[in-house]
């Protein structure tokens, strides 16, 4: 009986995928803040594996896309900004790493959902003085097309709810569609590799989608690790 993969992961597979992603990110994004696994300080007698936790990256500054690029949706102009991720090119026109007073910093967490069996993105953004931003300020930060999606289906897209591991409200991208688009992205890999789910590629594909909401694009070298059809590069 042929089993087709449904786009989901077990929590153990997520742990493996997350560690692989952190390593891949370190290899190709050395100048950016790094992902690290945060083990949850739960009582040891609650969970029997040490892998209960989440993947975290802090102080990410979103790339500044020019106003023209946003409005025209011109692919060429957007690709100029991808260059900031490559070590050798420093685009001085793009404020990235030092951050002035108007710069907003983001913390991103990838937390496993046992219900949906996929990673879920939680995020918080801060002004330079450490104060968190409100939802409508975030909307100004993200690329225009994401903002459109946001207003069209607000409740199913970006919402505020309690972080599953920290007792605080965070923002999150709703996960109910994740397994479907992950299946689309990686199912050819899954059936080709008879060993099952392509765990090593999972987070790259996942981030290639959720990162787009914030204008974060993975460098070409990372995308090549999984193949062109296993990621989404936004062309709108």
């Amino acid at each position: 009986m042929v089993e087709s993969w449904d786009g989901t992961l077990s929590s153990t597979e997520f742990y493996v995928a997350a560690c692989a992603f952190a390593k891949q990110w370190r290899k190709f994004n050395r100048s950016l803040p790094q992902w690290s696994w945060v083990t949850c300080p739960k009582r040891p007698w609650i969970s029997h594996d040490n892998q209960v936790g989440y993947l975290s990256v802090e102080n990410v500054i979103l790339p500044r896309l020019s106003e023209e690029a946003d409005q025209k949706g011109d692919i060429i102009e957007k690709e100029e900004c991808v260059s900031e991720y490559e070590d050798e090119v420093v685009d001085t026109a793009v404020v990235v790493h030092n951050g002035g007073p108007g710069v907003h910093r983001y913390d991103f967490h990838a937390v496993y959902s046992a219900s949906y069996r996929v990673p879920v993105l939680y995020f918080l953004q801060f002004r330079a003085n450490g104060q968190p931003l409100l939802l409508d300020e975030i909307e100004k930060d993200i690329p225009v097309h994401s903002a459109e999606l946001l207003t069209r289906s607000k409740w199913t897209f970006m919402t505020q709810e309690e972080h599953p591991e920290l007792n605080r409200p965070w923002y999150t991208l709703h996960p109910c569609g994740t397994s479907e688009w992950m299946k689309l992205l990686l199912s050819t890999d899954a059936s080709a590799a008879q060993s099952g789910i392509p765990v090593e590629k999972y987070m790259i594909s996942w981030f290639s989608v959720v990162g787009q909401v914030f204008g974060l694009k993975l460098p070409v070298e990372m995308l090549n690790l999984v193949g062109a059809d296993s990621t989404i590069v936004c062309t709108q």
Partner: protein
Amino acid sequence: MVMDYKRGGTDAQQYVWGGAIPLQIHLHDSEVTTLPPPPPALILAPRLGYLPLLVPQIKPFFSSSLPPGVDTVWFEYRGLPLKWYIPTGALFDLLCAEPERPWNLTIHFRGYPGNMLPPCEGEDSVKWSFINALKEAAYIINGNCKNIMNMSQSDQAELWRSVLNGQLEAYLRVSSKLKLDIVGDDFAFKLNSTTSHSRQSTTDLDTTGTIRTGRIPVRLYIRTIDEDIDGLEDAPIVDSWEKISYINRPVEVHNEGKCFTLYDAIKTLLPELFKDEPSVDSNTCEAEVKGGQNSNEGSSKSTEERGEAQTERAGLPSDSAEIKLIRIQGIEPQLEIPFGWVVNNLMNPEYYLHICIYVKVLEPITI
């Protein structure tokens, strides 16, 4: 006969839907601007409801006393801001070790603790949170949220209204359209085959012997007690949500011919608390299921003895902790009750079973 009880719900469902907690609501001192201060408001809060839904009833008691400003309502119990998206009954079962009647809560209309609680803008926020939980439960049961996303506007409105007003019959009428039945008449679970193409279909009992699995939505709230106490009334109050461990993880059920009990369910979620213990005697369980089938209560007198032994076994300490109490909808069900019965009768309208567990953390033995 069977259809009659299904239309109006089982006896246990009626008890649960009719269940309410008497509240005595005090306006916070900092918001009292009149002398004498307003007396507390006394109201009945449905177990299956949510605190913000009571604000329209409560506000009239205090509105003349409030300082000027915009209302941002929140509730607090002994200094702990209450999470408004947790059903009232679950909050009560968790935070009042020894049930306090009436339950004394403080209400605030100003100074919302936005660093601790997501914003709540009244009924709309609660409804959204409820629908979201229902979607998640549907995903757990069926592998997709389609039947929730495809609900007609009128069905959604009717469902929410039945929850708002605590109308079980209306609720059962609408919810039956959602095809989220996970339990059959014999308390056995309706399971899906493991091949993923059939994950989305609810199927009959499989006779070919393939392994069948199902996932049941469960929310577990674990309160740890790390002091030596004689009785529950001595339990230290919860002054921070850090003292509560929240586990939102489905129970996986595999049909291997054995009866799956509440004990089995909790053991799958918290295996560390059941180390080195004998598993449930499946023969005993089958006999109990047959004997209990005619009564909706689900536990006959002959099981009391076994129940006690069972509870004692669960109480046997692992190296570091032991379960003191398992509370669902305000009761402590016998652990050998079929889990299917517990789910069918004690779950909340969003198809989640909320379980409160008190765990005593033992002192490490020092040599």
